[in-house]
């Protein structure tokens, strides 16, 4: 047993993050008979998974029997603009149905078809109705199901515990982490044979975001510092439909299910403008008249898809362009209208939380009035570079799954593919970590020097009398990233962002915190800011280097996709392993796609 001056725990598999991926990984490792611990920054059941609304994509073929994994694979790769790790997209498409069915054994209650199967709904970029769902609260159903399963298995969960840094053994394997309890501010060390990063996203670095306070990219950052690589960090998904008014809820998500269920986008002139924004890649499968599009909802063979259901990057850019052209709504968005197209009863049954959300927060009745919406920072496609089969990183003992991992979604994620990503690769990460532990190659020793250094850094803000308020630094960072590394980017602004990030690094070194260590949000934020800066920097570096537009990365100065840039991911590594260490960026070639899968992608439709 390591001699730690702090509260110390030992596990076979330690999972950081208790959202869908973390909980699914825990179930898997636990079923293998290993000792499993889960750490979460919040209470159990509050992770960002709860915010997912529309559903989880799985080609079960319950609504359209033509659907199968090959179509799902194709849709995912095309939606990702072919920057995906093809093997992840393939495994995801093949395994998602089993992972969804499995949830029913654990208590999930999905909406049903008339013959009693799991009902599936239409979503952007998916050729067939494919999303298993529960009204518009599918994420809640997923997290509650996994949470209840984990609890019934007797797994240790450390709630409101913030991990500062990963810790290695003497040979460089990951051997655990150092954290603190938010309620008491006391430090705690965790020794583990394998660690799974399942910390979710990083959207809190932007001003208008659907992400909660937790989305600070802790897992992205600590994996990079520990020696892993981050890929595709420039690929940020701006969800087309976030609320824009009142200002206090700007960025709050409006589910794509509104459009899947018949909602359309209109500009201030009342025009369904998406017909003007159909890229060549999607023209063959997209309706070219309102009449054709409207027939499609009831029968997918009667017409082609409405352009409102193009992949999210396409729709977000179109909205951005309409607003810039002066055809926006009074509060700087566009109109999303379902009230004039579907009955009030249908809307309240299919979209209950959207109805509730607009009624309570904006005083808008969506069964009769249009919603005002605009793009909001929602999801990071980029993340820790992992092996598709095992979720292993290049650092022994370190695994990653869910939004924190990169590769699965390429340059743009399709709606509904994230919940299924969590359960497919959560399970694989649990298996991968378990197999690693069982191989006997796991870490021996625990570097207390790394612990001491992390603790010292975390406590520094208490010692500065005249430093800066962490809230001021966070607000300025969010405004800077929104302005310079937002939905539309250009070289000069990215250069500016990189210079400004150096300034932010200095400001973070000069933070001061008032009060004590027990449940002190100011201090908690001070310890999140290094992660936010690491994410912001890798995003800006990637965005600067990728001189083309692809998926969730749009360059005003390079508006087209460049086939040369479609051959590699930009992979970042830390030189030094500290949060302020220099970062180098390399070109990592994409995996070659086998011929039989290539054929699926090249089919005309």
């Amino acid at each position, binding site marked *: 047993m390591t001699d730690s001056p702090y509260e110390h725990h030992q596990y076979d598999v330690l999972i950081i993050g208790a959202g869908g991926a973390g909980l699914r990984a825990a179930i898997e490792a636990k079923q293998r008979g290993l000792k499993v611990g889960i750490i979460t920054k919040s*209470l159990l059941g509050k992770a960002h998974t709860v915010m997912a609304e529309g559903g989880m994509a799985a080609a079960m073929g319950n609504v359209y029997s033509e659907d199968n994994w090959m179509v799902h694979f194709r849709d995912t790769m095309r939606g990702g603009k072919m920057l995906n790790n093809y093997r992840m997209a393939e495994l995801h498409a093949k395994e998602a149905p*089993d992972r969804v069915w499995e949830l029913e054994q654990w208590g999930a209650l999905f909406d049903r078809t008339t013959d009693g199967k799991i009902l599936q709904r239409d979503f952007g970029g998916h050729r067939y109705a494919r999303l298993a769902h529960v009204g518009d609260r599918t994420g809640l159903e997923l997290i509650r199901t996994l949470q209840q399963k984990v*609890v019934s298995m007797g797994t240790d969960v450390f709630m409101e515990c913030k991990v500062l840094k990963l810790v290695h053994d003497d040979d460089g394997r990951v051997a655990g982490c150092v954290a603190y309890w938010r309620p008491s501010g006391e430090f705690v060390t965790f020794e583990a044979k394998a660690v799974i990063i399942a910390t979710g996203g990083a959207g809190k670095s932007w001003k208008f975001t659907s992400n909660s306070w937790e989305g600070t990219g802790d897992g992205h950052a600590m994996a990079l510092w520990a020696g892993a690589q981050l890929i595709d960090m420039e690929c940020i998904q701006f969800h087309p439909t976030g609320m824009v008014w009142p200002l206090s809820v700007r960025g709050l998500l409006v589910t794509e299910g509104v459009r899947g269920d018949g909602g359309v986008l209109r500009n201030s002139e009342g025009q369904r403008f998406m017909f003007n924004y159909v890229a060549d890649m999607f023209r063959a499968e997209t309706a070219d008249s309102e009449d054709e599009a409207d027939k499609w909802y009831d029968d997918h063979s009667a017409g082609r898809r409405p352009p409102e259901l193009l992949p999210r990057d396409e729709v977000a850019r179109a909205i951005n362009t309409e607003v810039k052209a002066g055809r926006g709504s009074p509060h700087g968005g566009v109109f999303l209208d379902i009230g004039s197209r579907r009955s009030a009863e249908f809307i309240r049954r299919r979209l209950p939380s959207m109805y509730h959300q607009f009624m309570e927060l904006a005083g808008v009745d969506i069964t009769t009035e249009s919603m005002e919406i605009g793009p909001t920072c929602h999801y990071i496609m980029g993340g820790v570079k992992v092996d598709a089969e095992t979720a292993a990183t290049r650092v022994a003992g370190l695994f990653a799954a869910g939004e924190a991992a990169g590769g699965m979604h390429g340059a743009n994620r399709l709606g509904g593919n994230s919940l299924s990503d969590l359960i497919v690769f959560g399970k694989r990460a649990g298996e991968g970590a378990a197999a690693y532990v069982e191989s006997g190659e796991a870490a021996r020793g625990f570097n207390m020097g790394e612990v001491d250094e992390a603790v010292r850094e975390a406590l520094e803000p208490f010692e500065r009398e005249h430093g800066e308020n962490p*809230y001021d630094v966070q*607000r300025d960072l969010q405004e800077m990233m929104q302005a310079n590394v937002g939905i539309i980017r250009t070289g000069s602004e990215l250069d500016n962002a990189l210079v400004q990030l150096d300034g932010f690094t200095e400001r973070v070194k000069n933070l001061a915190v008032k009060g004590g260590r027990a449940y002190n*949000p100011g201090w908690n934020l001070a310890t999140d800011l290094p992660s936010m800066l690491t994410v912001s920097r890798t995003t800006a570096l990637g965005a600067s280097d990728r001189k083309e537009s692809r998926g969730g990365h749009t360059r005003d100065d390079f508006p087209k996709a460049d086939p040369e840039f479609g051959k590699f991911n930009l992979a970042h590594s830390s030189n030094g392993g500290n949060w302020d260490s220099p970062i180098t960026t390399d070109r990592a070639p994409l995996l070659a796609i086998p011929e039989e899968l290539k054929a699926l992608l090249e089919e005309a439709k």
Partner: protein
Amino acid sequence: MTDVSMRIWRGDATGGGFQTYTISQNEGEVVLDVIHRIQATEAPDLACRWNCKAGKCGSCSVEINGKPRLMCMTRMDQLPEGPVTVTPMKAFPIIRDLVTDVSFNYAMAEKIPALLPPPMPVGGYRMFQADVERGQEFRKCIECFMCQDVCHVIRDHEENKAHYAGPRFFIRVAELEMHPLDTNDRREFVRDEMGLGYCNITKCCTEVCPEHIHITDNAIIPLKERVVDAHYDPIAWLGRKIKRRVITSSADAAVQPAP
């Protein structure tokens, strides 16, 4: 932009009191926005829980002007004129400021016998919408624990927590009992271990539920009826004596491979 006076309880387990902050307030803001502004300016160490800020995660439960509310869904312009009083939930021990120790709820959740479904057929289970809807109502629960906070059985009687689960877990048991696939039986458990009989259906829980779940009518009363049927029907009593099937741990029972 107008100014508003916020009376916020600050302190910890050893004691505390109200502090008043006069702070600006913008159109359309909710209580959580104003709390965040206080944190960002005057009191960065003001402790509160929050996550989604959209009424979906149930983290930011407090008492606003004495009533359990989610801070993220309570609009400032719908509160009465005058100072707004914000206090932590009363039924749970204080950690700091507006944050309480809700571990009672997590401990209770661990005790509930899990779903026990039959093996899954190839292609998944068949269930019908009308049958899943009963459970779906209860699965809307966001675990804000405001129903627990307002329930007088524990709000005013700390000692009852040892043998009373509270409304949140009555709907959880009701959901499992009404689950189309479940074969477990929790009727004795809910009577003996969860203290269902203590509830005298005053419906306070139903009134505060932000998801508008009919906790009393659709969960607690049907559960009480089931318990009564099981315990005071002589034929059922005899049947129970002959064949008892209560599985209290699902750890081995619920592990089944996917197809």
